[in-house]
């Protein structure tokens, strides 16, 4: 089952697909694959041996090119659409992490490279390998109905970070200094990601951080038992070492004015995150023992050990609520319940999370909504109404209604309210919204003030870490363009011929490796910061990485040589190869449908449906005329040395 709470796929890919961005020509047209036979025009019986190099006309009639083993690049919208449909995990990742590639690298034992492939797109592999919300796994092809369980992508990422060579240092590809300065406000995921990209293209970057340690929510919002701090700091350092200067303990708007920053730098990026907890609008929140879940987590993560008493009620349904509950247990609470309006199914957390929480004896109580918090000075309990589920909201989340007269009181020593956060207003010029938080354009990140930008959760409201990172990187791209008038990187679809399938059929039957955790709950609690997840052994990691179908491989049948013998269809593991009458395209030239037929007259082509293909390679092995070719198709970020 896939617990699918909608994760918006970053618009970059969509833009390429919608064809709004037309940078870069289509470089060349594809090879026709390996051949033992002339495809046409030759005298009977000529040339049965495999040609070293061959010429093929481009479909648009342009002159033929050398293409065997050539790597081709394309910015054609339909190619981006292809990537979106056929490499579902990667398109699901806001940061477009090249998932199949890093999984394959790990399998090949190139652990450090595997880590780097992550580092290139998501900056914090070690961190994300632990706490990512994993939109990719919901889309993993291996998770499709008859195919079993999704690949444990996230934990392979962690394995890459766990097993990279000790002291591994990632060699960044850098641009010459530009002599321009950008000031980033907030050292959270968005800020750090932006700082990294800006520094890499030659800006002089300074980060201002209000807390005394960098990391933002990574450092203060995520409990240590999930994310060991050494991992985090190491990855932050690898950003700082690009010459990014960091000033902590500085609260912008209070200690220093935004105007001054603007005067001092060519651009200022505000990525201060969401630290204001949404207040609960019910009677009794002022009572002692009632506190914001976020504050509690931040205190706990700052080394404090707040006393919560024995019985703790957590109001909220997100990751923060679970952090609160699990932290509470580690802070000595004995009976901790998460109280939610709807039901478990509606929780915006992973299944593992629920499972682990329950193992630690966190109770999840559904269908109840707090009416008031009771007690005279100190909290004594919470009065709840039973709720009845009623359909869903537009965003797909469950609607519930309180039931009249169903009040009951649940006793509590303390109550943690974790019902969401918002951005905190910062003293600064520029248009603001009703909550007097700076407004900015979500595409350009520009505010009404020239040179002042906003990005990350501060702009969008609370999202996931991976989304924040992606946002930071996009902001950096925009700022760089605005300040220099040129582009440093471009996205293209890279196609390289692959002679082999890299896979074995029986790998498809390997069961999903689950992340081992500290067995005994007792051991988990002392020390409380002990990491609960133990990480894959190398064996497990390799075993798991074998499971990946490597959807970046593209299988294609060359109709010029196909004899329509249907051998491939016969050995196909599922309905992934089709007898086709016609291929339907949409306006950008992407496939929208393969019209199948069993009428022999109408079978114009036998086509591999790459959106069904599990890359098992069975067809390739049997094809009598070798008309099936495999290529590796990836979206890559190419450095534009001269700029564009």
């Amino acid at each position, binding site marked *: *089952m*896939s*617990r*699918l709470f909608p994760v918006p796929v970053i618009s970059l890919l969509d833009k390429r697909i919608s064809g709004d961005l037309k940078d870069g020509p289509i470089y060349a047209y594809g090879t026709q694959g390996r051949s033992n036979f002339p495809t046409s025009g030759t005298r009977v019986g000529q040339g049965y041996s495999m040609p070293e190099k061959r010429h093929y006309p481009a479909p648009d009639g342009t002159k033929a090119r050398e293409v065997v083993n050539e790597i081709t690049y394309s910015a054609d919208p339909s190619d981006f659409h292809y990537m979106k449909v056929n490499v579902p995990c990667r398109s699901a990742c806001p940061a477009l992490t090249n998932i199949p590639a890093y999984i394959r690298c790990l399998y090949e034992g190139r652990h450090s490279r595997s880590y780097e492939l992550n580092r290139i797109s998501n900056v914090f592999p070690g961190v994300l390998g632990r706490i990512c919300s994993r939109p990719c796994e919901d889309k993993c092809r291996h998770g499709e*109905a*008859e195919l079993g369980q999704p690949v444990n992508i996230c934990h392979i990422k962690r394995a890459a970070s766990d097993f990279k060579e000790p002291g591994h240092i990632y060699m960044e590809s850098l641009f010459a200094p530009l002599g321009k300065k950008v000031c980033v406000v907030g050292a959270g995921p968005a800020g750090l990601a932006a700082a990294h990209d800006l520094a890499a293209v030659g800006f002089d970057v300074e980060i201002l951080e209000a807390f005394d340690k960098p990391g933002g929510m990574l450092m203060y919002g995520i409990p240590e038992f999930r994310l060991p701090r050494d991992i985090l700091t190491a990855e932050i350092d690898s950003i700082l070492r690009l010459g990014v200067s960091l000033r902590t303990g500085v609260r912008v708007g209070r200690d220093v004015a935004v105007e001054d920053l603007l005067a001092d730098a060519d651009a200022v990026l505000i990525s201060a995150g969401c630290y204001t907890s949404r207040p609960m609008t019910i009677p009794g929140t002022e009572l002692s023992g009632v506190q914001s879940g976020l504050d509690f987590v931040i205190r706990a993560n700052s080394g404090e050990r707040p006393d919560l008493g024995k019985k703790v009620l957590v109001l909220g349904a997100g990751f923060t609520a679970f952090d609160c509950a699990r932290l509470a247990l580690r802070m000595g609470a004995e009976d901790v319940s998460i109280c939610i309006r709807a*039901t*478990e*199914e509606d929780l915006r957390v992973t299944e593992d999370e629920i499972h682990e929480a*329950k*193992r*630690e*004896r966190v*109770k999840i*109580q*559904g*269908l109840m909504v707090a009416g008031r918090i009771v007690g005279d000075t100190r909290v004594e309990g919470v009065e709840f109404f*039973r709720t*009845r*589920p009623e359909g869903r909201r537009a965003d797909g989340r469950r609607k519930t209604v309180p*039931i*009249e*007269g*169903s009040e009951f009181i649940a006793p509590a020593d303390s109550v943690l309210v974790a019902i969401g956060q918002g951005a905190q207003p910062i003293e600064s010029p520029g248009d603001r919204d009703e909550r007097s938080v700076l407004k900015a354009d979500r595409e350009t990140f520009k505010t009404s003030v020239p040179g002042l930008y906003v990005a990350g959760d501060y702009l969008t409201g609370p999202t996931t870490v991976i989304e924040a990172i992606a946002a930071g990187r996009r902001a950096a791209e925009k700022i760089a363009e605005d300040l220099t008038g040129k582009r440093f990187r471009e996205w293209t679809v890279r196609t390289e011929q692959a002679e082999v399938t890299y896979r074995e059929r029986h790998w498809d039957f390997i069961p999903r490796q689950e992340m081992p955790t500290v*067995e*005994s*709950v007792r051991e988990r609690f002392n020390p409380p910061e002990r990491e609960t997840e133990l990480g894959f052994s190398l064996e497990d990691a390799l075993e798991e990485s074998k499971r990946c179908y490597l959807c970046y491989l593209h299988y294609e049948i060359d109709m010029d040589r196909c004899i329509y013998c249907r051998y491939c269809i016969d050995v196909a593991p599922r309905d992934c190869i089709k007898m086709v009458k016609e291929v339907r395209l949409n306006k950008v030239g992407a496939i929208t449908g393969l019209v199948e037929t069993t009428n022999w007259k109408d079978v114009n082509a036998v086509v591999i449906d790459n959106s069904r293909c599990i890359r098992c390679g069975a067809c390739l092995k049997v094809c009598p005329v070798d008309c099936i070719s495999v290529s590796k198709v990836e979206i890559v970020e190419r450095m534009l040395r001269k700029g564009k």
Partner: protein
Amino acid sequence: MAREHLVIVGNGPAADEAAPFLRKGVPDARITIIGREVVSYYRPDLLPDFVAGKIAEEDLWVNPLQFYKERDIKLRLGQNVVSVDFSKMELALEHKEVVRFDGMIIATGGKHRIPEPLARFRELVLTLKTVADAKVWIEKLTRVESVLVIGCDLTSVVFTKAILSLGKQVTFFFDPSSPHLFGRSESIREQLAHKMSDLGAEVVDCSKIAKLVQTREDLIEVTTEAGQFRAGAVGAFFGMVPDVKFLTGSGLHIERGILVDEYLQTNFKRIYAAGDCAQVYHPELCDYWVSIGYSNARELGRIAALNLAGEEVQTEAPLSSIFKIDGRPINTSWWMEA
């Protein structure tokens, strides 16, 4: 025009009661019972007696196959529903068969709940839900003399009596930390404790089980905060949790069990739930209650069938809020799960 197809998922008491009523109500519909166990319907409530040797295996069986043939009810045994699409009104079986239906009664009952920390020693712990489980016990009891019963739900009590009658010695664990039927009222627990010891069971009120170790064959060492215990076999009785995993993501309203109104209808038209897997909302209570036990399950099964057949029968005010065990009324209107 194809006959309408009514499917009953599950083959327990509720399902067994529902089927004939459904047939009466809709004489010309196709009716299919899909059960996970390969055996046809039997009396789960008699399993303890079966273990105790009071009754023979044949006594468990209820209907001959002829019963289903006569009523034109299709039995699909040993078949497992893995997902349901209520928008298409299709369900998928484990062997990838897609079955269309026009109405459904979900009566999958419950599955055993084993809380932490016992869960970590799952393989050392026995339960009692199916004939298969019972046979395991019977085989076990030929070799062991002492049994440790942990956590107490309804079955645990009946079961304890059953094995005592075999002359085995029983250590009966109350695990107050783990919520169960009686978890709410101290007084009931005491009364029950007395009852148990009267019957000859050693009653220990203790939680915090640290670990179970199999020291040798047919000997398990249990370490608790109340000291060490030894027993030939360990049984876990923490009640059932509704067996509704296959429905997650189907859009069906599920909290603990499947949420149904007083007519046992779910949030989908013509989809009903009955028995242990249902969580029934009752207007008078302004709350949900969960049926426990054999007779309630049958009653709910009947009501669900009648309603699917087009009648409008309400469930009585929580049937089993007064549920008697050894003469003591037990409230089962709500229960907790860790």
